[in-house]
């Protein structure tokens, strides 16, 4: 009988242990499946976003060329034709003539700025920081804002595709300030660290309750803030926003920088397709 008890106990230990082992194996397999599914979903979303951004940049480029080559050219010709005319003798006509000339000049300049701002090639030609500076200069020119731009740490260029995406995020942030913030001062800080670039864009405007924005972002996934966040995700970076009513708004962006090669050049761009050249 002793043996029977012993055998029964041993059998129970083995069977119960086996059952727990099977549960363990089952969960491991389930976990592996979940991870694969998750990876596929992330890859799909990344590709979708990548395609969307690439298409958007293509459209921007086409539009920029259209503005520059057609509308810009027409306005320049119109301005030249105006110059060829003699100034009218009458005083009130003179005033109209000068106003028209000034408005044409302004329209040509504004379109030039718009074309430059939309064209991703400009970042390639001027460089990322210089392009951001030009954006800020345009704000300074309005005379409505005090703009403070600082860059700290060792400046490092990164892949042009990433620069274009990041440039669009900064443009969106600045656009939001102009549209909603009612600010008088804008601060932009670039901090290059060893392996990441931290960007702070802040203003002294009216601010807002972040809860409202969070709710709106969840409701309408196409908002500007959501786009900014999405673009940052595409760069494997992080995006955060802090604000309080009456105390301005701060946008924090952190983007990983590529590992530097021995010769100091950045590594290849990975994760999204080439932008139109």
């Amino acid at each position, binding site marked *: 009988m002793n043996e029977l008890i012993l055998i*029964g106990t041993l059998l129970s*230990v083995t069977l*119960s242990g086996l059952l727990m082992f099977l549960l363990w194996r089952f969960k491991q397999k389930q976990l592996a499946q979940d991870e694969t599914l998750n990876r596929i979903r992330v890859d799909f979303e990344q590709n979708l976003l990548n395609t969307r951004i690439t298409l958007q940049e293509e459209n921007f480029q086409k539009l920029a060329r259209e503005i520059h080559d057609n509308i810009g050219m027409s306005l320049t010709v119109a301005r030249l034709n105006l110059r060829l005319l003699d100034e009218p003798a009458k005083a009130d006509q003179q005033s109209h003539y000068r106003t028209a000339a000034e408005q044409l000049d302004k329209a040509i300049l504004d379109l030039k700025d718009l074309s430059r701002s939309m064209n991703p090639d400009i970042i390639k030609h001027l460089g990322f920081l210089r392009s951001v500076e030009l954006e800020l200069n345009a704000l300074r020119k309005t005379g409505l804002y005090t703009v403070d731009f600082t860059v700290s740490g060792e400046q490092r260029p990164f892949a042009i595709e990433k620069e274009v995406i990041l440039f669009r995020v900064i443009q969106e942030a600045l656009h939001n300030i102009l549209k909603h913030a009612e600010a008088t001062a804008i601060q932009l800080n670039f901090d290059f660290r060893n392996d990441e670039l931290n960007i702070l864009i802040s203003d002294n405007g009216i601010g807002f309750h972040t809860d409202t924005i969070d709710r709106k972002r969840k409701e309408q996934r196409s908002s500007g803030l959501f786009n900014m966040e999405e673009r940052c995700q595409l760069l494997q970076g992080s995006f955060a926003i802090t604000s309080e009513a009456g105390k301005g708004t701060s946008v924090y962006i952190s983007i990983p920088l590529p590992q530097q090669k021995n010769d100091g050049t950045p590594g290849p761009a990975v994760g999204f397709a080439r932008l139109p050249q």
Partner: protein
Amino acid sequence: MNAFFDLTNGLMLLFNLAALLIGILHFRRSIFHKILCLYISFALFQDMVPYITYFLHFSPVQRHYWMNASINCFALLEGLLFYYYFYIALRERFNRLILLTGTGLLVLTAAWLWFLMGKFGNSFQSFIAAELFLLLVPCILYILEQVGAKKAAPLYNDPAFWTGAGIFIFAASSIPLFLGWSLSFPVDANPDPIYSINNILYIILFTSLMIALRCKPSSTHE
């Protein structure tokens, strides 16, 4: 057989002490760790009862009474603690309701056996056998919940898995042991072989509890 019993008893005490030490070290980690630590402390106290009765020079009758009484009390506490543990670990409302029913059954069984049948100071086997069956319930519910869970979480870091595995192996294996003993052993037979095997089962339980205590649960039960 005495030597084998002494060996397994000594080893079980060592494992119990080790588990208590790990439990104290990780006591603050989560409610699961606190419950396990409490259980291990009770288990150690239970292990000490024979020595306490010896040092207090209890008569054989008194010794018999207090041994049975302490095992009965410990078994009830053990059952309640593990039921509470799985009440927190399990997510589904239905499973929690079953656990509440099980808790009620455990208390009723204890009350019936101890006070109506008068077994509190006389015998512990009947209550242990009933408790072992009831201890299987939360483990089976945990296994079913894990199998049915749509979202997978790694089990190696889940204290409930290791605790469930330990109790399941212990309870499932103790049932044939105690049933065989109750059915086939004469009343005055030497229980040392049964206790020796039971000690080994306790070593397995304490080992899995030690692993459970080393887990860092990522759940919100903190």
